[in-house]
């Protein structure tokens, strides 16, 4: 029996799924009507009871985050939706917004009501022009239909394309018109966020999960998932698999099960390593096929659930090459605010390039690990920490492969073999 549990993605296969007509046909905007009739605190309690946790990576309980907003403080409150989906390998919010933008808008209405906010800001990365257009249309339609504009407004803000702006405080700075660099905490956004007002910052998927919870109740949501990781979620599967894409399943599904659903690793090859939650989460290997993909399970196995971006690499892939490409990404995207991330990624790339070219000694691996130790937990925000994850985990599992580069005087792999077009003319 299939383990899929499509809630968010229930109607993605319908041609007009993104329209307000299709959304309403499937009961859309009934949940917000129901929530608006409820006491805001009851809505917060409902979300707390559902066990919904943040889908942006950290897994912080959503209802609890809403509950941090001081009430009766006579200040404006804001909801900010983080749609700056930039983590390498992550492709869940973008398809979600393409296929069903209204579920996010309805989620915004419910969340705004709960936290007593009148404005929601959706911060979307600038590269996804098609999603921007679609979401703009959806917002316009929601206004026309009277769902928005009656006490709750939604503003779409298009970012300029910076990984750091996915960090919630950098996102707030960017939204305010400053350079996106993370802010000092405290004060936390719940106390002084956007324009120094109490602000909830949630991931797209977290907010989009709320309408179904309101419609079907906390118990229904509680019924899916594992003990501490409730509900369903979108896993984005990419890389060397037969059938990549988004798979919505209850939390706790394993990669083995997802691979079964997706037709397995590409034909004729076998799994070498994979990321459970994007490139910032430590790598897994084929040992970890049966790790339950929930917050606790992945953590217990030494990584993080992150954004549930399952990037699959088969045995044709050079792990050094893959790690170097990720590290180049971190170097390019380091905002420059703090020393460890800024200077560390600059240095890491140079060492990894040498290693890929077979230049260096085994002592360089020790240096690399020591350097990662000096960056991990020393940087201003979590992005610096994340930059070290692929390096430390790859050396842990594939130390021999690094050494092979040195003894081989270069990369022992043929990079063409790892490409999709490899063997096309064979």
């Amino acid at each position, binding site marked *: 029996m299939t383990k899929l549990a499509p809630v968010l993605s229930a109607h993605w296969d319908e041609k007009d799924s993104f329209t307000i007509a299709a959304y309403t046909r499937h009961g859309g905007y009934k949940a917000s009507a129901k929530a608006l009739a409820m006491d805001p605190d009851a809505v917060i309690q409902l979300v707390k009871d559902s066990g919904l946790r943040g889908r942006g990576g950290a897994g912080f309980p959503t209802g609890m985050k809403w509950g941090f907003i001081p009430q009766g403080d006579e200040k404006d409150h804001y909801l900010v939706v983080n749609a700056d989906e930039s983590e390498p390998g992550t492709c869940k919010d973008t398809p979600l917004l393409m296929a069903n933008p209204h579920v996010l808008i309805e989620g915004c209405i419910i969340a705004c009501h709960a936290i007593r906010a009148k404005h929601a800001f959706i911060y979307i990365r600038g590269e996804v022009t098609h999603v921007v257009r679609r979401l703009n249309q959806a917002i316009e339609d929601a206004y026309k239909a009277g769902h928005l504009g009656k006490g709750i407004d939604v503003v779409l803000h298009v970012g300029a394309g*910076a990984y*750091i702006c996915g960090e919630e405080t950098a996102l707030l700075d960017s939204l305010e018109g400053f*350079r996106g660099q993370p802010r*000092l905490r405290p004060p936390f956004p719940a106390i002084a966020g956007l324009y120094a007002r109490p602000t909830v910052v949630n991931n797209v998927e977290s907010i989009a999960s709320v309408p179904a919870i309101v419609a079907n109740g906390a118990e229904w949501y509680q019924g899916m998932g594992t003990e501490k990781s409730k509900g369903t979620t979108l896993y984005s599967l990419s890389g060397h698999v037969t059938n990549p894409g988004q798979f919505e399943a209850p939390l706790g599904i394993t990669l083995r099960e997802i691979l079964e659903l997706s037709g397995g690793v590409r034909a004729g090859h076998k799994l070498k390593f994979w990321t459970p939650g994007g490139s910032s989460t430590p790598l897994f290997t084929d040992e970890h096929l049966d790790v339950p993909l929930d917050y606790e399970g992945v953590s217990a196995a030494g990584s993080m659930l992150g954004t549930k971006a399952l990037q699959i690499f088969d045995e044709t892939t050079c792990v050094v090459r893959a790690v170097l490409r990720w590290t180049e990404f971190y*170097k*390019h*995207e*380091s*905002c*420059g*605010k*703090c*020393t*460890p991330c*800024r*200077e*560390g*990624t*600059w*240095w890491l790339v*140079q*060492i990894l390039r040498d290693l890929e070219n077979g230049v260096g000694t085994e002592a360089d691996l020790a*240096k690399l690990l*020591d*350097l990662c*130790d*000096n*960056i991990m*937990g*020393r*940087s*201003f925000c979590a992005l610096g920490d994340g930059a070290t994850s692929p390096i430390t985990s790859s050396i842990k599992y594939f130390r021999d492969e690094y050494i092979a580069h040195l003894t081989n005087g270069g990369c022992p792999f043929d990079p063409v073999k790892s490409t999709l077009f490899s063997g096309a003319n064979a």
Partner: protein
Amino acid sequence: MTTTQENPTTQAVELITVVIDGFEVSVPKGTLVIRAAEKLGIQIPRFCDHPLLDPVGACRQCLVDIEINGRAFPKPQASCTIPVEPNMIVKTQLTSAVAEKAQRGVMELLLVNHPLDCPVCDKGGECPLQNQAMSTGNGETRFEGVKRTFEKPVAISSQVLLDRERCVLCARCTRFSDQIAGDPFITLNERGALQQVGIYENQPFESYFSGNTVQICPVGALTGATYRFRARPFDLVSTPSACEHCASGCDMRTDVRRGKTLRRLAGDDAAVNEEWNCDKGRWAFKYVTAVDRLTTPLIRGADGVLAPASWPEAIAAAASGLKGKRAAVLVGGRATTEDAYGYNKFARIALGTNDIDFRARVTTDEERDFLAAKVVGSTTTYRDIDIADHVVLVGFEPEEESPIVFLRINKQVRKRALKVSAVATKLSIGVEKLKGEFIKVAPGAESAAVAGLPLTAKSIILVGERASETIGLLSAVVALGDKSGAKIAWIPRRAGERGALEAGAIGNLLPGGRPVSDAAARVDIAAVWGVPSLPASPGRTTSEIVSALNSGDLDAVVIGGVDPLDMANSAQVLAGLKKSFVVSLEIAPSAVTDVADVVLPVAAITEKSGSFLNWEGRPRAFDSAVADSLNRSDLRILSALADQMGESIMLGTVTQAAREISSLGKWDGARANFATVSAIGANKISGNEALLNSWRRLLDLGTMQKGEANLAGTARKAVAVISPKRAEILGVKDGDMLRVSNAHGAISLPALVEDIHDDAVWVPRNSFGTQTLISLNAVHGDVVTVVKA
């Protein structure tokens, strides 16, 4: 454990006790861990941290291990961002291996992209990066890769150069500009290791405070154009000093190598300038070493030419020219308190007159009464700005005329939205930055606006010296102060004016604020001075002295540190001097030495000791920074001159003068009453006429800024400011030339259309091409004609 302790100045401050490296320390709530450690003498390395800037936590050099209530943070924390909490235990690099490694790691990373060009870097030898790399870093680097490089240097302004490859991106400079100076013209650009400090291309970095960014740069990334590559810190001899450029009273440090001042830095005085100063104070010191300094006495011979003479000859010539003559004293506002005291004593004993005035500028008798009744002995301070509920600026532009007062107001505006109101004709850049209320008045019509201000006893009125340029304005200020209980502080532009006032260098007051008209006061002073009596009739004011020199009612004048071009009618001043016997005490040739009969060269500020009283009345003492100067301070020369005249004033040294001033103390008798003067109001205008409004900018043609081309590069452009309405009538837009003229002369300047009273035109008083007082011979509120040139 939390305890409270009485703080005598404010309410009780809650103290929090924390344990750092096993030692307990109690600090006020809100203190950052890094500062609590300092109290124990534990130095945590840091770069971005600065006690006067908001914490940023960017450099990560100050990481320490922290636990609270037995729960440890999972990773080391930046001690510059975390305030102490009860039951906090901190382990620095001294007791935590994790913190120690974290700090070493960050130091190594900071040096990855740092060029290590210390041997040619200005900062080498006094560099926080160098020092902390020695204390916290590894001897050898493990980095074998390629460092980032940039074109070097980039000119941030004509004064400040940036070597980007040296920068550790601590953001001290950008935060200073934004948070302290309010000039956010520099910011960080780009990202990652290519992040760099940059300027906004369309708006030059014209800050009056830019030098502070050089001083707080923890590496050699920002350097001063004037000092760059000039010296090594260990070759410099540093002397604590005070700034002579304005009445703010900055604490300073003067660095000298082989008898020559190479740079001056802001000193550290929390009560006054905190750790800042302005660019003029920092970079205008070459006038001291200018080639045209006077080094030898000069006597005008029978041929009418000044010729070098020996000191005994010159003193004898001066004494014989003054002896038995009706003589007066004019001393500029640049004199130290001790020198001003010397002039005062010289006038009253050697010349037997009260004809002395330190106000070498546009003045009134109303001002002299105001100074005697309200200013001398008054004690309004910077602290009063800190606690004020409302600051009112009258005839005073703090950013231009007393920059540290501006910084202090700005600090309170930023911290607690202090209300600022400016009674002025033109909205200035400074008042705009202070988010001040602009009470727009026509020049001459200020009094009515002042009268209506709703102040309380917690308010403070800051009155500039230009308030004297409107008849009745000081009377209105006094009335407002009396009515509301608001404090009044008088802030002159020049460093020596308050000291000269207290030292009695004015015709109606003896030292210590003693009224000349009070017999008991005269007896007081006469007793200390050992003379039978002192002249009893109040002396002439500056303008009366000038008139008397012209009319022949005075025969001679001793004049020191006065520029006739600063006065309302400079032609008349020069004419008066030409008619009289003039003894000039000066540091460099000037319009006065040109007509003087005897010229006596005196020491400049770095060559002598002494003190100023800043606007608060706070003594700012300094020592001679240059040891081997042969130049003498004014009072030693005056003392020799008095001896020669047989009327000894017994002031051989500065110390002697200081001791005598302090033994005199302040007058405890009745103050002079202030006689209210009625306001006249603005002059009437018609057609193309406008009322003149003007002040001196911080950076202009001032004689003490001579030879500082880099400094002059950031001076604000000379413009003529008119209102949009007048611009429309004249058909003028920004940049079009305007001609401002009267019967005396004309000046032409580019127009700037801004928020100014429709009846007025504003021009800078002493900037390039606009020496208003000379060109137009016009003062504040005078009628001029403004047309398109």
